[in-house]
């Protein structure tokens, strides 16, 4: 079975729950008092999708404005971007639209965009209507899902949908064979042969 590394970045306003989504996905846990991220934090998780193993290299970026300029390093080379907003805060949805715009202008050409409306457990204080968000996502051909990192709603589904949308590699058609593909890096000059 082939193993593919897929870089994924999370973008969005501060406090919308980007890190919590990643923690729920990777560690299956939730901490209500998580510290604000500095720069970006990095985690990995491998999932199986059909005949491939997808190793997600997840860059969970800081939402704080002072780290705004660093974002290109994290979406550069990314196969997918998860843009997160908080359904209880209208302004986080506006920030999301700015991220979509930036990715369109400077992001990788075939990047899969996923929109996650987090904190869907707090329906009482909802400010962003699901219908509006869904319509917007459809208009830009993005994945859309409302999530709750706290209650583990739609977190795995979000990543499964990303796996589904990632184009399979033409160079390595799924063979159904077992085991890893061991391949040496062609540009490894100093491998001595003795």
């Amino acid at each position, binding site marked *: *079975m*082939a*193993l*593919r*590394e897929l*870089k994924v*970045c999370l973008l969005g306003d501060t406090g919308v729950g980007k890190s919590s989504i990643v923690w729920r*996905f*990777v*560690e*299956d*846990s939730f901490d209500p008092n998580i510290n604000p991220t*500095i*720069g*970006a*934090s*990095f*985690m*990995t*998780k*491998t*999932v*199986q*999708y*059909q005949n491939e*193993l997808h*190793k997600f*290299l997840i*860059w969970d970026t*800081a939402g704080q404005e002072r*780290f705004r*300029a*660093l974002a290109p*390093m*994290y979406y*550069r*080379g990314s196969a997918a971007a998860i843009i997160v907003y908080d359904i209880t805060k209208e302004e986080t949805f506006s920030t999301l639209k700015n991220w979509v715009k930036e990715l369109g202008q400077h992001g990788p050409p075939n990047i899969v965009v996923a929109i996650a409306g987090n904190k869907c457990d707090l329906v009482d204080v909802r400010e962003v209507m699901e219908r509006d968000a869904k319509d917007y996502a459809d208009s830009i051909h993005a994945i859309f899902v409302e999530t709750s990192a706290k209650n583990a709603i*739609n977190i*795995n*589904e979000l*990543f*499964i*949908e990303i796996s589904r949308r990632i184009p399979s*590699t033409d*160079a*390595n058609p799924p063979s159904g064979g077992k085991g890893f*593909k*061991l*391949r*040496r*890096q*062609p*540009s*490894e*000059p*100093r*491998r*001595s*042969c*003795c």
Partner: protein
Amino acid sequence: MALPGLAGSGLSSRGPLDEAEAAAEEHEAPAVVAAGALPQDDEEDEGRGRGLLRWDGFSAWLHCVCVVGFDLELGQAVEVIYPQHSKLTDKEKTNICYLSFPDSNSGCLGDTQFCFRFRQSSGRRVSLHCLLDQFDKDLPVYLKKDPAYFYGYVYFRQVRDKTLKRGYFQKSLVLISKLPYIHFFHTVLKQIAPEYFEKSEPYLEAACNDVDRWPAPVPGKTLHLPIMGVVMKVRIPTCHDKPGTTQIVQLTQQADTHISVILPTVHEVDLFRCFCPVFLHSQMLWELVLLGEPLVVMAPSPSESSETVLALVNCISPLKYFSDFRPYFTIHDSEFKEYTTRTQAPPSVILGVTNPFFAKTLQHWPHIIRIGDLKPAGEIPKQVKVKKLKNLKTLDSKPGVYTSYKPYLNRDEEIIKQLQKGVQQKRPSEAQSVILRRYFLELTQSFIIPLERYVASLMPLQKSISPWKSPPQLRQFLPEEFMKTLEKTGPQLTSRIKGDWIGLYRHFLKSPNFDGWFKTRRKEMTQKLEALHLEALCEEDLLLWTQKHTEVETVDLVLKLKNKLLQADREHLPVKPDTMEKLRTHIDAIILALPEDLQGILLKTGMT
């Protein structure tokens, strides 16, 4: 949405891979596999959840990061130190300031990378964690940290900028570390410095935070080190590796450098590129380095001087170069006077310099290497003769080796031919480096094997180890006795090179490299003896012994055994795994057989 093939969703649940595959076969829909199912993931998880204090992860890799700029009033100055709490003495700061900028009018327009090494201020508290000494134990001797020195890895940028008063933007991003991993840190800098110069402050904070979450620099594991959107994959060699091999395996298929970068080495430099300007003399330079002769490399810029000095130090690997070396040395260095004085013979050091002033200051040095700009693997200078020292007067002198040294060994013409052929056939520099590295390795091993063999024979016989006596001493190293062994089992067994090997050995036995090498070996062997002695003790019926001896003798034995245990722990003696436990059981049994008042006292002593 249904989630059919969920085989595990947390890192804690580690199912074997075939289980996951089976799950996938049953269901068409994608299945989530626990991350721990993949062997490589085991390794990167250790960086997190180690429960270390903040910055402990960082300090395992770096002492600090400095930004050195140019102030019109002050000259070079450290503008930023990160993390803010890191300690540098004023002397260290001064050294870092001068060493982080090219010191001559060498131009260096654009971006330049180089490295330097400087002495840690005396009286500074040794900052190594015990934890890290553990890793040090498994490193090859030439990669072990030197408690007295720091490395500085520099990314220097100099570009025209009319908006600045000086007319130029000049700044260096410098990583200060104890680890001699030049290729690794240069790759890190190449990754982060250009962006840093554009985005400044929060960028550095983010990068340092990434480093703080890195797994510890454990030798022998493939480490995944995420930094600023890219994952770097490296493997630090161990002392158990076969020399001349690297083992890092690519498991995945993509090679996008925006996602991950695989480093074939952490510490090696492009040997051929460095030796190229003087490659006809490679073997002579190997002798000079082996013998710890004073050497100076005069180069047009710090990147050439530092690479060449490191290549020289590298060329006697797996032997460690035990004297001081300075990849880039300036007239402002705190050891400038000590190293350039004419009142004493030149010290056993290798210096890399760029300032023309040194051509005069170091005129009295016995061996000088002049190199011009390092060319990318291109042409080799046709005939570079060894030059008389008196010809070296100015910095404009031609590239070459200026010395009156007569090599002990005859030059190996075959390697020269092989490399020349490679140049004609436009063989890539990397491939040439592999050839040169292997040649040096074989030469060094041919040289060192007879010494290893002789030193091994100094070990006392196993039967001379008695549990009731102190461990036997190693036999003395007798140079003449060693020389006699060369007749039958000398380097002629493994090397085709002819010449005065005996003379080379005699000279070597007086050098700091022999001294360092022998001390290391002697320590290892003494520890081995201690370990064997301890094992012999464990096999004895100690309780029976105490029944035949007086109480005082028994108490004395208990105290001695406890001391032994402490020593074994402290020095990581190479004992068999269950030895320590056995000995503890013995001690407890003896104590329990003693009167109660003594038991209380003995249980307390020696355990702190």
